[in-house]
């Protein structure tokens, strides 16, 4: 049986780490979560990014956040990747599987998955 008391153990384990991490997010993954994004399947995309970033131990330098309507609803789910010193990358028509590949190749490997970017996608 899981209980709230287990959160105290997470607190013990995390407290030092979280303090170190604050402000060090070099990479930001932003998922559009307005009506258009949600209806198009943004929820599993967001959750896959969160899980993969944790699994690959990238939480020290990568944060995953949500935003409202970006304005290109026909391309939803839309994901923007901001890396310090680099141009923003906009991924469109995302899925959970595509999110896994973006984490492996772009976030971890440093190579943009250009076939999923807005410039290479037709509606």
């Amino acid at each position, binding site marked *: *049986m*899981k209980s*709230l*008391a*287990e*959160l*105290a153990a*997470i*607190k013990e*384990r*995390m*407290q030092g780490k*979280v*303090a170190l991490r604050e402000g060090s997010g070099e990479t930001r993954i932003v998922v559009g*979560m*307005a*009506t258009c994004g*949600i*209806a198009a399947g943004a*929820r*599993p995309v*967001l*959750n896959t990014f*969160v*899980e993969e*970033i*944790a699994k690959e131990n990238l*939480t020290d330098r990568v944060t*995953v*956040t*949500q935003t*409202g*309507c*970006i*304005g290109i*609803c026909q391309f939803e789910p839309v994901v923007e990747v901001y890396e310090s010193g680099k141009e923003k990358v906009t991924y469109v028509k995302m899925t959970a599987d595509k999110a896994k590949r973006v984490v492996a190749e772009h976030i971890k490997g440093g190579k943009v998955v250009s076939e999923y970017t807005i410039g290479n996608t037709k509606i």
Partner: protein
Amino acid sequence: MRELSLNILDIAQNSVKAGAQHIDITLMETDELFTFAVKDDGCGMSEELLARVKDPFTTTRTTRKVGLGIPFLTLAARQTGGDVTIESSVSPNTHGTLLEASFYKKHIDFTPLGDIISTVVTLIQGNPDRDITFTHDMCGTVIRLSTAEMREMLGSVPLSEPDVLVWIREYLTEQYGQIK
């Protein structure tokens, strides 16, 4: 929307956008009826906005002039014989909004609830500083989660921490598993 849990996420995001600190999501089920309510203490809507909020040509977004969240939900409710009601106040002491949606579960057009656990996890991930309570009453068996109670245990560790999100998912999965 393919799942009601997506409508619930969408409606709760409106509460976030309205600047709510407290968001209460309550699901109630009987054999016949499924209802959910989202109550917040956000800025509320004026009578004028409230009157036209079910109109698809009403939206708070700035990127275009169509807003389909509430029209989608109203359609999903009405096609089962249910409905959506919205009360709202902008007065300084009682500002906030209460949305209630009801559905007849046995109607062939009833949209399944779907992955409500992912909705709760997603909402907390994006809004770790708000007080969100989630309650699901299934014919008297109640599942409950309160981020304020979690925060008491976690101290300064944010609720958006991946380990915490994993815990939420496992906790709710276990609670639902015991009912089935």
